[in-house]
């Protein structure tokens, strides 16, 4: 029997009561704010039956410049058997923007985390090959940070 969304959220609340900061609903989407230390445990817990959130739909980051916990990692998980999407959010400090990598669990996290590293400068502990995905080697700064100017130009690099 399919498990309802309420039941999943209830189970999560019970199991990870210390690590879940807040649960909200916006425009019909469920958002779960978690502590960044608990990310791996929660994802591992949800990946197993009966929840089977086996697909990492999306992984991205948001820059809230000016706030102490500046970066917010956003994870979209999807369960094929339950047909449910869940969104997890974890805040990172500006001077310690590091979070555990999901590459051991989801293979597409490899590229998605490289993209976030490229665009925001967030580091992922345990990532096998953290290299810029879109920008070239030698590019300075992280373009999607709010303090990176829209029209900034970088000097041309030499052909290698």
């Amino acid at each position, binding site marked *: 029997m399919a498990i309802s969304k309420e039941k999943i959220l209830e189970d999560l609340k019970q199991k990870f009561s210390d690590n879940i900061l807040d649960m909200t609903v916006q425009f019909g989407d469920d958002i779960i704010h978690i502590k960044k230390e608990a990310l791996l445990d929660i994802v591992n817990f949800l990946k197993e039956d009966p929840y089977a959130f086996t697909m990492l739909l999306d992984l991205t980051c*948001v820059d809230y410049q000016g706030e102490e916990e500046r970066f917010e990692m956003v994870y979209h998980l999807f369960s094929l058997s339950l047909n449910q999407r869940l969104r997890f959010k974890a805040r990172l400090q500006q001077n310690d923007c590091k979070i555990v990598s999901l590459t051991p669990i989801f293979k597409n996290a490899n590229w998605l985390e490289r993209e976030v590293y490229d665009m925001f400068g967030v580091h992922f502990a345990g990532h096998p090959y953290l290299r810029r995905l879109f920008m*070239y080697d030698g590019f300075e700064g992280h373009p999607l940070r709010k303090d990176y100017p829209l029209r900034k130009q970088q000097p041309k690099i030499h052909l290698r």
Partner: protein
Amino acid sequence: MKYRIQQEAREGTMLINMGPSHPAMHGTTRVMLELDGEKIINCELEMGYLHRGFEKICENKTFFNMLIYTDRMNYVSPLINNTGYVMTLEKMLGIEAPERAQYIRVILNEFSRVCDHLTALAAMCMECGAFTVFLYMMKAREYIWDLMEQTTGARMTTSFIRVGGVRSDFPSDWKKTTRIAIDETRKVLKDCHGLMSKNKIFLNRTRDVAIVTSELAINYGWTGPCLRSTGVNYDVRKAFPYLVYDQLDFEIPLGERGDNFDRYMVRMQEMEQSLRMVEQCMAKIPRPSSSSEPVTKGLEPAEAIKASRTKKPEERIKLSPNLEGTEKEKYPGILSGKKYIVPPKEDTYTNIEGLISHFKLFMSGHGIRPPKGEAYFAVEGGSGELGFYIISDGTDKPYRLHLRAPCLHIVAALEEIVRGNYLADIIPTFGSMNMIGGELDR
């Protein structure tokens, strides 16, 4: 920093570049290969050659202006991108398009999907040596683009789907054009089935090459035809029905082995399903709220402005957003949500309410302002789940916009699945993945 492939290189192997200017790499991807003879023992992909900073641009554009950037994501099926973006906004604004507009959207979406699959397969077949199939499929696409052109006024950069509905109604003879497009596409599909589906050369290069199991596909976050080719039944149109897809009768073709041939076959069958859907929509679409004849009689805009100085002109005005005669009477059928739509031009030019609502839409700091919050909405794009994740801070610009590009997840798997295959296998494998540079690199 040395590339991973250089770090891991073994003694006595050859490192070779494929792309970014290799014709089979579609111009925007570089594959680095470590070869032992003809066998690939290691592979690394480099991309970003088409990176235009889509997400950064979006943070600095208003919600209305951004629509044109979504055309340039997946440039083979721009209408699906438009729909995805607009429906995310509609989800935040809490408005829904009128029924006729929803049918128009579905018809154009399904035709876009056919275009997308046609282009992907045409390129794939051509790279395997079947140039005839390429030409045939381009021919079919041309018939579909006739309808697109007549309706949207553009072949690629359509920007046709608007918040609250669509930009204009179908032209008066759209059913004829659609009928021709469907029939010609069916003919082409039959021909291509005959040319490719049992072709020994094609089968040798695609059957049991680059097999992807369903577990691997799910782990990589595959969606769309590529996921379905591994036998997983997931389609956004069925799982999270949007528009009028829940009222249409269609099947989801599934593959069995998850090899290149299955990815080809699933796309071929999906096109037939899309054409079926268009036929159903043609029968079900509600009548337009006024006659679909373009208005040719009426005042010229300049005369109307002159006349409006003394009193409100009674006669109709020729000018309209699509330059085909006024469309004001059609608005109830194709647009809803008064605050978020561009008012008809004759209203803007001749009465104060129209002028005010026009300015309210385009002045900076006004316009479309979704409430504070965030939303994720996904549509079924040509190559998978196309999701928009928008964070709004209550102003007319998004605080953050993220596009979930389906082909990023699919192409991410290439490194792993070509390993152990031959060099020549990359080409049909990469072709079957339907890599779209604009969407991959954003």
